[in-house]
């Protein structure tokens, strides 16, 4: 495949494993074993079974009739919000916990921003009876209290991170330090298509179930497995990677990633990494970053904690650079409007992250016969306080 990672872990000029030597043994073991493990029949069998019976897959592909009418086109929603724990995040954590078991790891660590990946990790650790430590920026611990409580009830230890700006980037730094300090018994479940090779490829493979199902469902519902375009929000980019995966080589399908513009891409308060960033190395990957001229990473901002990351998966940096995918950005304001529109047209309250993909519908020229698929990556349950504060319901 043209957009596959190469043997050195690169997508075009992006990716690699820019790890300190202290992480070499763990990363090397993963790099050599991940494909053999995840392609083995017994892994596949257990993964597929859990996807079906535990996660609740396949997730429906829903034709959003009233939203389609509103935009004068055909809009389908891939309902990842209906998965167990309310987002696409569980697809990856189920895959990685099965992998960790086969690597003989006894202790699981993870980073989390909004808490969705933390909850998905704590969930699979409970499922497998493994010790779970979740690093979370101290500010996010305050902002996302309900998810912190869920993780604790699931038996995870939540460690507030007080360094830097106390958000996702700092939580990731701390998880990497933990892995350096515990090089033998620990697996780090990274939550997105970021970090050193083979994580971006591995996480994309686990999330690729989204586009695999989409093909079959579209074929049944529209007579063709190829839509006109697919839209997905992008922070690190795991749900977008999953939604794009099986369409990457089918260039007739337009792929659109939507970044968080925050208060606007021309302000300092944004998380639109591709649109305002430049190439650099962070979290062991060469990718596009938000940084100053001295190479110091700058703080991102978005209303959605899940997109609040100053980097992006190397696959997306490559899709951007090569022009295979188009990347737009939606502001907080546009996102909130899009969330209400979906809620009141279809009776579905989307996650703030997913509402970025919905907001992009306003910016596109769509024909009446077009088939547009939106990856509805998560449920808005976790965002009710933000919605209530904004609209004052």
């Amino acid at each position, binding site marked *: 495949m043209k957009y596959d990672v190469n043997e*050195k872990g690169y997508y075009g000029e992006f990716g690699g494993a*820019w790890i300190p030597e202290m992480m070499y*043994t763990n990363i090397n073991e993963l790099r050599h074993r991940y494909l053999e493990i995840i392609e083995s029949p017994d892994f596949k069998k257990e993964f597929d079974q859990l996807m079906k019976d535990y996660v609740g897959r396949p997730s429906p592909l829903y034709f959003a009739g009233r939203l389609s009418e509103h935009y004068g086109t055909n809009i389908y929603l891939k309902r990842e919000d209906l998965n167990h724990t309310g987002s696409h995040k569980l697809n990856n954590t189920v895959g990685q916990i099965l992998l960790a078991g086969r690597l003989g790891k006894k202790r699981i660590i993870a980073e989390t921003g909004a808490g969705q990946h933390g909850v998905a990790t704590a969930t699979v650790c409970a499922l497998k009876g493994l010790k779970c430590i979740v690093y979370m920026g101290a500010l996010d611990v305050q902002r996302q209290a309900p998810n912190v409580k869920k993780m604790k009830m699931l038996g995870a230890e939540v460690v507030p991170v007080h360094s830097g700006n106390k958000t996702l980037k700092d939580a990731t730094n701390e998880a990497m330090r933990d892995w350096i300090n515990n090089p033998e018994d620990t697996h780090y479940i990274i939550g997105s298509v970021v970090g050193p090779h083979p994580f971006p490829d591995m996480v994309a493979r686990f999330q690729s179930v989204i586009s695999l199902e989409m093909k079959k469902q579209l074929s049944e519902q529209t007579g063709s497995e190829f839509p006109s375009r697919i839209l997905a929000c992008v922070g690190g980019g795991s749900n977008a990677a999953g939604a794009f995966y099986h369409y990457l080589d089918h260039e007739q399908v337009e792929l659109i990633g939507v970044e968080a513009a925050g208060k606007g891409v021309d302000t300092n308060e944004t998380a639109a990494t591709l649109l305002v960033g430049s190439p650099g190395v962070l979290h062991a990957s060469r990718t596009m970053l938000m940084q100053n001229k*001295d190479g*110091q*990473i700058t703080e991102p901002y978005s209303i959605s904690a899940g997109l609040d990351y100053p980097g992006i998966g190397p696959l997306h940096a490559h899709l951007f650079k090569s022009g295979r995918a188009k990347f737009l950005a939606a502001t907080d304001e546009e996102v909130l409007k899009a969330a209400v529109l979906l809620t009141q047209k279809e009776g579905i309250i989307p996650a703030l992250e997913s509402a970025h993909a919905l907001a992009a519908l306003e910016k596109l020229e769509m024909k009446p016969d077009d088939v547009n698929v939106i990856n509805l990556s998560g449920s808005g349950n976790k965002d009710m306080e933000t919605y209530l504060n904004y609209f004052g319901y």
Partner: protein
Amino acid sequence: MKNRINQLFETNKKDILSVYFTAGFPRLNDTVKIIKLLAQNGVDLIEIGIPFSDPTADGPTIQRSSELALKNGMSLQLLFSQLEEIRQSVQIPLILMGYFNPVMQYGVAEFCKRCSETGIDGVILPDLPLEEYNEQYKMHFRENNLHNILLITPQTPAERIREIDEASEGFIYMVSSASVTGAGKKVEDFHQEYFERIQQMNLKNPRLIGFGISDHDTFENACKYSRGAIIGSAFISSFQDHEEPEKTIPGFIKKIRKKN
């Protein structure tokens, strides 16, 4: 001119003491003063830290010093201009240590050239892996007689240690045990087995042991298995009551070298 790191290791000197500090900490313009004081007080080699916003291989002490240094306004550009005349007063080897991204943004070729002009002898970039260095950057280092110092850990496989030894010039930075910097260790925490195993490999490069070396006992123990040791976090912590470097440095070095 011969690289000063090689000059140092070609002497018979034992118990080599290398000290790390973060440029721009505790105050922006302390850099040159600290280097001079360390050299005057018998330190053999100095590692000057380039602060980075996301120091993933560092513990809390160096995280905090980096954060403060950046707040003070430190940058690679400024560091080079502070060091412009350093070779008029300091003769011991000087190494820059930091993360890859600030160097990448400065431009690796330009960085290496500037190091050479300034009189820097070596560079330690923990997140620049051996393979990327060999393929993309080695020529810039070689052209400027600048040594890239590589790390090994207790988990590094023997075969890879050989590769690292092959690619190294100057010395090998031996990480004492699996950890980020500054994880306050005692002598009994060190893996004697690892130290001995490496000693028996007859590597072509000398080694310095770092990470968790904090006092006379840990320094002395590390020196039994290598040419010397590196102290970072413990030195930075000695500034924490914001005393003048003149007051703290002589006593600190004396304590490391000799038991009270």
